[in-house]
């Protein structure tokens, strides 16, 4: 009698397990579908030892929005690679993957031949000291002054005992970006260009091998922008850094870039030297580097023009 009672109980549970199983299978299948690839214009096959940073078949989605679509890219050591593309094309997302601040939905990232995209944050902390990241807005800590900002990464990774030595270090790093004397300023007292230069000094505080620049010249006047360009060139020639610059400023791209990559709708559509890009046959590339409006955008503008014509004129209100 007790056995008979036990059997139906088990049966009651079974459909749930089947349901969960089916759910998992559906999830796996939809995941597999997402991974299907299509080949873009200038995507090359890369191997993990092709460069200091290698991205292999990187795809990134935010919910259902596809931002990077099967991007493969190898960054050569000692060179400056510039990533160009219209706003919102995934440039910043791409550069954040290089230091594993964002993890890819699928694909692999290698730094010096070692895979980094599957490491935990704690394992990454050592690797990230080989990187310097210049954020778009500088991202200086507002609660710390310039000196403390620059010493932040140093204090996090080393025990600072020699305080005059750390003062010298701050002085040296600030002198490199032409900001010596601002040690005791707080970030809110600095202008946009000054903030970026201090942020650059902080990014190079640990003598990184790779410096990643996220839109270094955006929001600066042409002269300040050129100062940043000169700094990028100076750091490269002086210390032999590998640099990756994300920008939509073509003047800056031509000036600092050994190699220029254009990203469009999450794919690489052009890859080569400044000359190669200037003579690239792809209409989107030509349109972007010359800063021209597309026919579609013009059509939209004309539409809104016709709206204006239908509006009232002052004479309509005259008695």
């Amino acid at each position, binding site marked *: 009698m007790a056995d008979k009672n036990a059997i139906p109980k088990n049966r009651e549970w079974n459909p749930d397990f089947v349901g969960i199983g089916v759910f998992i299978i559906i999830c796996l299948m939809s995941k597999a579908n997402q991974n299907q690839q299509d080949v873009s214009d200038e995507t090359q096959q890369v191997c993990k030892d092709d460069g200091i940073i290698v991205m292999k078949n990187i795809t990134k989605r935010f919910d259902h929005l596809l931002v990077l679509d099967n991007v493969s890219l190898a960054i050569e050591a000692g060179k400056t690679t510039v990533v160009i593309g219209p706003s919102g094309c995934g440039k910043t997302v791409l550069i954040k993957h290089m230091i594993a*601040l964002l993890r890819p939905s699928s694909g692999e990232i290698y730094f010096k031949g070692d895979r980094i995209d599957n490491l935990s944050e704690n394992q990454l902390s050592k690797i990230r000291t080989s990187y310097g990241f210049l954020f778009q807005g500088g*991202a200086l800590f507002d609660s710390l002054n310039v000196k403390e900002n620059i010493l932040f990464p140093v204090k996090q990774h080393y025990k600072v005992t020699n305080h005059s030595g750390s003062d010298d270090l701050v002085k040296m790093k600030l002198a490199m970006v032409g900001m010596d004397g601002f040690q005791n300023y707080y970030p809110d007292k600095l202008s946009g260009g000054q903030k970026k230069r201090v942020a650059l000094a902080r990014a190079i505080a640990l003598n990184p091998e790779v410096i990643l620049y996220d839109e270094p010249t955006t929001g600066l006047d042409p002269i300040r922008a050129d100062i940043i360009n000169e700094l990028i060139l100076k750091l490269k020639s002086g210390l032999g850094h590998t640099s990756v610059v994300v920008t939509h400023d073509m003047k800056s791209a031509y000036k600092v870039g050994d190699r220029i990559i254009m990203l469009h709708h999450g794919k690489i559509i052009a890859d080569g030297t400044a000359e190669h890009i200037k003579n690239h046959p792809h209409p989107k590339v030509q349109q972007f580097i010359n800063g021209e409006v597309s026919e579609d955008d013009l059509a939209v503008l004309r539409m809104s023009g016709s709206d204006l014509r239908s509006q009232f004129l002052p004479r309509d209100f005259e008695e």
Partner: protein
Amino acid sequence: MGESALAAFGSKALEDFNNAGRCSRFIWRGLTGSFKNLFSARYYQLTWNQMNIIGVRSVPVIMVTGAFVGMTLAIQAYDQLAFMGLEERLGVLINISVVKELGPVLAAVMLAGRIGGALTAELGTMKVTEQIEAIRSMGTNPIRYLVAPRVMACLLLTPFLIIYADLLGIMGGFFVSVLQLGVNSGAYWSYSASGVEFWDLSIGVIKGFFFGGAIASISCYKGFHCREGAEGVGQACTEAFVASFISILALNFAMGLIFKAIYNTFWPLRVLL
């Protein structure tokens, strides 16, 4: 229609489930981070600063809160007790309520408003201006650098703040009862002393430990996951306060049940102490 409503319900449920999981993981990492920070001298200064901001600077508002709670209780309860000729028992009523329930809960709500909002706004602004990512990019764990000191400061200092609230609540109740309402001072204290046990006082303080942990971890979580822009930060602050408040009330209820069960179980052993 029915199907889409079901789908909407399902996706909302999944999303809430996800958020709950993320929040729990965040709180767990915050707590383990705080524990690890205890063994790393580099973080002492940070924790010390947060203790100053969170604990020391909250003392005045917490004391004012406590005083008003005690004073109001005295005013409200006096007429009822005097009607039955029991006004000398006012002390028991006020002190039990203040020490066990009103002191801890209202102090925690005050703290949720004062520091919860500040923590969320501070961390939310840091997230929006990419400062948290900057910390990560320099190879530092933002949980240990930003969250753990704040959680630790809240955990350690909320019980002390509750002691301050209790103290001022007791004093406020005493002054209003004795000076304004004319209750006999000696009778007031002797009834209070016989009615309030050490157990009552300690559960109020133990509650503070949990309230502090809940306020800090919820506020930090909301700050870390706030959306872009001024509106995102504002909304995160609102959500942080509401969530802290609700969790304070829920924790208070749960702890009320638990402590009652403990008390009832161990009550016969009390004579041994």
